[in-house]
């Protein structure tokens, strides 16, 4: 018990660090999850775009165009009229498309647009607008009055819009739930919290003098290691539970709340990966600053390569292949799996493989740490 | 007064409710080695920090070299050397670089500095360790480096704040000898320590501080003379009785007599030939006695008598 208590107490030193990462999780996790939830796994599914329109013309024609976009797309506030800011908003996905209707449009029929360079959705949007404007212009040129031209165009576009395609595979419509976003992001923050706090706490136990003092205390080897192990486990469980609880409490109405058990299971498995990495790092160094640095290097790089910040589909195939050798990949895969499957079909070989792979990596890190500690002791480094 | 290198008048320093230095006054004459003694928490280090203008104080007046000491009194600072209680060296610089860096804060001329640094290393016996990083030095060497950094610029006034903590006897001897040498060469020294024998051996004058006050001041023998107990006599007595104690107490200058195990312990408050008087009483009364030991008071006794025996922080 004394080792257990001392370890838990020494955690107090790192509360600021833990607090910072928890804050990052709470703020940035929520932000990114909000941005990504509702969007789709496949990225391409949602074809109703966020379009910002700036109408300098305010003519019947321009208003008809705005009206058309309003009925077919999702109109958003451009928030600016400056070209560069419009462009940046489009490039960084604040909205997908910006259309500027210049003064004199009714006669010149010239429009200017902004879209992420060469993007497919942008191309499509341009085609739609082009076709709408073209219809009206053709009608006008053919002698129709403007009101009639607009009415005809609206009617036939609405008519044409009824055309639909036959889709062979309907299962590909996975909405990304908010929980999925939060738990994916937690792959980064939870690992960081565990690595830094547990890594640092463990070094004090490995500190030569402290260790000698405990060794001569007469407490048995088994007892003190059980104490250390239990305390580290408790720290891990506390941090993991806190992150899960936060996610639940702040999003009680989430569509995936019934899957929370599976998300939690996956997160607790990740906790062991964190503990393994922490042990590994603490076997390399005892310096707090270097522990923090190594944790950042390992976890942050891994988070980028394994799909925490950038979805796996966007990554290069080779990288995805390599990331199979990183534990966080399996965690993210498991999270996506939970997102995509119904409760009944959860316990499959796939899902269990994802969990097992994480545990294997946890064990690898732990054993690597053990070997390094032993070697260091042998050569008294 | 004209010769006072350091003069502290009525210094008061509070930490909130806690009075760390309480109307403390101190004068250090040119060429003195002044020992500043006091239990932990008595205000020694606080006084030194105030003296160096590192700490703000609530009241009092501090003059060094006859001028008021202020944070920006650069001319005064340039003539002071400090050896801190804790080792204050830069971990990533080696021994030579450390001494050179700190010396360079005082001495601008390159050639002079080089000479001073070499001398300081020679002085502290670190010449063979120039390229060593502080981490690689033993406790004693590290303390010596700490000293070298403080004195390389040949200051007129040097403050040593417990410089020999955790130092082996050989190194300690070397350090003390070095301090004496510096003093002979003209430096005035203020030396604080817990080691009474060190202070007794080294210092020409001693000030004892307690609870922030100056509680005793004088040379080693002056302080000892100020004690009530001037001689302790211990005699082994096989037959012990209260009559003997009564009789002993009636001897001139004996103010206390009591049994401790097989011995009788007699304390005298001065006078000469106390032992002769006691022994003649014993033989005259045919009281058999064994081993006889007589002890003169030490500075340690003075210290404990003045500051009390209860434990400090």
């Amino acid at each position, binding site marked *: 018990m004394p080792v257990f208590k001392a370890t838990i107490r020494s955690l107090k030193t790192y509360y600021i660090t833990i607090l910072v990462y928890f804050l990052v999780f709470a703020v940035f996790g929520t932000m990114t999850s909000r941005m990504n939830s509702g969007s789709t796994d496949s*990225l*391409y599914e949602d074809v109703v775009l966020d379009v910002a329109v700036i109408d300098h013309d305010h003519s019947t024609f321009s208003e008809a165009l705005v009206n058309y976009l309003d009925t077919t797309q999702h109109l958003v506030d451009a928030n600016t009229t400056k070209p560069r800011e419009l462009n940046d908003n489009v490039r960084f996905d*604040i909205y997908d498309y910006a259309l500027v209707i210049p003064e004199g449009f009714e006669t010149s029929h010239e429009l200017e647009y902004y879209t992420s360079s060469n993007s497919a959705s942008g191309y499509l949007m341009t085609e739609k607008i082009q076709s709408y404007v073209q219809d009206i212009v053709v009608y006008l040129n053919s002698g129709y009055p403007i009101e009639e031209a607009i009415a005809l165009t609206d009617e036939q576009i609405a008519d044409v819009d009824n055309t639909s395609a036959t889709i062979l595979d309907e299962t590909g419509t996975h909405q990304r739930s908010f929980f999925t976003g939060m738990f994916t992001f937690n792959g980064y923050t939870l690992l960081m919290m565990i690595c830094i706090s547990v890594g640092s706490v463990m070094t004090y136990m490995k500190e030569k003098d402290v260790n000698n003092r405990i060794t001569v205390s007469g407490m048995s080897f088994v007892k003190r290691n059980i104490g250390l192990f239990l305390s580290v486990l408790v720290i891990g469980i506390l941090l993991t539970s806190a992150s899960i609880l936060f996610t639940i409490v702040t999003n009680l109405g989430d569509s995936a709340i019934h899957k929370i058990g599976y998300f939690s299971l996956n997160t607790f498995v990740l906790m062991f990966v964190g503990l393994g990495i922490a042990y590994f790092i603490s076997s390399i160094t005892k310096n707090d600053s270097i522990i923090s640095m190594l944790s950042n290097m390992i976890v942050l790089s891994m988070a980028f390569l394994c799909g925490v910040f950038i979805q796996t589909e966007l990554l290069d195939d080779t990288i995805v292949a390599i990331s199979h050798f990183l534990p966080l990949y399996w965690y993210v895969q498991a999270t996506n799996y939970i997102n995509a499957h119904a409760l009944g079909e959860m316990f499959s070989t796939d899902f269990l493989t994802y969990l097992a792979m994480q545990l294997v990596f946890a064990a690898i890190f732990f054993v690597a740490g053990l070997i390094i500690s032993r070697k260091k002791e042998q050569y008294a480094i | 007064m004209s010769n006072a290198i350091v003069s502290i008048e009525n210094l008061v320093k509070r930490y909130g409710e806690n009075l760390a230095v309480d109307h403390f006054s101190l004068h250090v004459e040119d060429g003195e080695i002044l020992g500043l003694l006091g239990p932990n928490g008595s205000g020694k280090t606080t006084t030194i920090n105030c003296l160096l203008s590192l700490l703000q104080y609530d009241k009092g007046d501090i003059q060094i070299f006859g001028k008021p000491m202020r944070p920006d009194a650069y001319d005064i600072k340039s003539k002071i050397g400090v050896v801190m209680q804790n080792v204050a060296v830069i971990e990533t610089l080696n021994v030579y670089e450390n001494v050179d860096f700190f010396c360079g804060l005082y001495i601008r001329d390159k050639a002079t500095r080089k000479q001073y640094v070499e001398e300081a290393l020679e002085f502290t016996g670190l010449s063979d360790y120039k390229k060593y990083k502080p981490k690689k030095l033993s406790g004693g060497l590290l303390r010596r480096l700490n000293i070298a950094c403080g004195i390389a610029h040949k200051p007129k006034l040097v403050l040593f704040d417990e410089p020999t903590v955790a130092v082996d006897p050989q190194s300690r001897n070397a350090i003390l000898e070095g301090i004496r040498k510096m003093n002979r060469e003209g430096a005035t020294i203020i030396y604080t320590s817990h080691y009474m024998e060190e202070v007794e051996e080294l210092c020409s004058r001693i000030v004892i501080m307690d609870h922030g006050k100056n509680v005793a001041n004088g040379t080693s023998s002056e302080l000892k003379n100020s004690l009530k107990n001037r001689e302790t006599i211990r005699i082994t007595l096989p037959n012990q009785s209260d009559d003997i104690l009564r009789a002993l107490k009636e001897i001139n200058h004996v103010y206390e007599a009591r049994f401790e195990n097989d011995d009788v312990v007699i304390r005298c408050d001065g006078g000469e030939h106390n032992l002769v008087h006691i022994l003649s009483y014993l033989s005259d009364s045919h009281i058999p006695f064994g081993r006889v030991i007589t002890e003169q008071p030490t500075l340690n006794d003075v210290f404990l008598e003045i500051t009390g025996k209860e434990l400090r922080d």
Partner: protein
Amino acid sequence: MFGRIFLYKLKELIRMKWIIGWNFLFPIVLATAFALGFGNLIDDDPIDFHTIPVGYVSELSAGDADASEPSAFLQVLEELSDDTDDTTVLQLYTYASEAEAKDALSTDEISGYYLEDDEDIHTTVPSNGITSTTMLQIVKEYKNYKETLENIAVDHPEAMADALDTLTSDTSFLSQHDFGNDTSPYLQYFYALLAMASLYGSWISTAMLTGMCANMSECGKRFECAPGRKLVAITAGTLAGLCIQALANAVTVLYIQYVLRIDLSAPIGYIILITTLGSAVGISVGNLFGSILKNPILLTVVPLSFAMLCSMCSGLMVATIRQAIEYYAPFFNRINPGAVMTDALYHIGYYGTTRTFYIDLMIMGIIIILNLVISGVLLRRRNYASI
């Protein structure tokens, strides 16, 4: 005095292993992770338009039209698959039967197929997505043209020829605003990384100040006992810190540009100018922290957390965050040194030396001056209430 302190501080700091690790190694490791992760996206963004391979099956009854003459819709498809245009939309395969087209679809030879019969044009795709939407759009436009011409034929037959001309001409009513330079949005990650690395300069400063202030360390006490102006010494130390951080940044920039071969898309001189200014921001922020904080744990945790939070807000983990903040709370982007620096790099990379670019540089300058002035005032004092 100044020169000596500068040189010694340079020596002292550069020998701190953790500074080498955090400030030199970490950005390089992270940049490598970025390059591995989405280096490919910089050259080839998956949201970019790709030509769609489509199938066409005709089930028109022979009597409806001349069999040898392709249907109007097929002509449109052929037009779209003509690769003389800037953008080739389609790559067309014709199949004799729907079964053949389905086979081709199952082997991913095509992304979908059209089946034209007498009544309608049917579009079949494997799943929902941009491909299906594009394919459908083609059908919609075709039907739209057809309807327009039919309407005109009824109401204004005399204008029929002109209308046909307009519809088939390549007149485009829309033009994309052209900024000349087309950099990948993924470069944003590298810009934010450089901002993060610059802010890491803040703990070089706190380490430097720790050795110079009596209330922070024993060395500080020794330092403050010495004669000589403290601010001069701190300036020398700050400059030493700046040199180290600027060097670290320059190494990272060169590493990204020449080793990872990721074009930062601006003249290297400009980039190094910005990262040097950014280093000064980091160093000056560290001075401010050092002048306020005393607790040794806070002296590393606060700069680290600050650097992390600022760089996250400037898009280190999720590239779009900076723009989202720009949209909802632009003021925050003006005062976040990480975002200002990222913005400067982004502007020079994408738009060149614009007004915003100079404003960013100016804001960085103001942040540096403010930090230095405040910390200077706080650090000037040389005696303390407690040490």
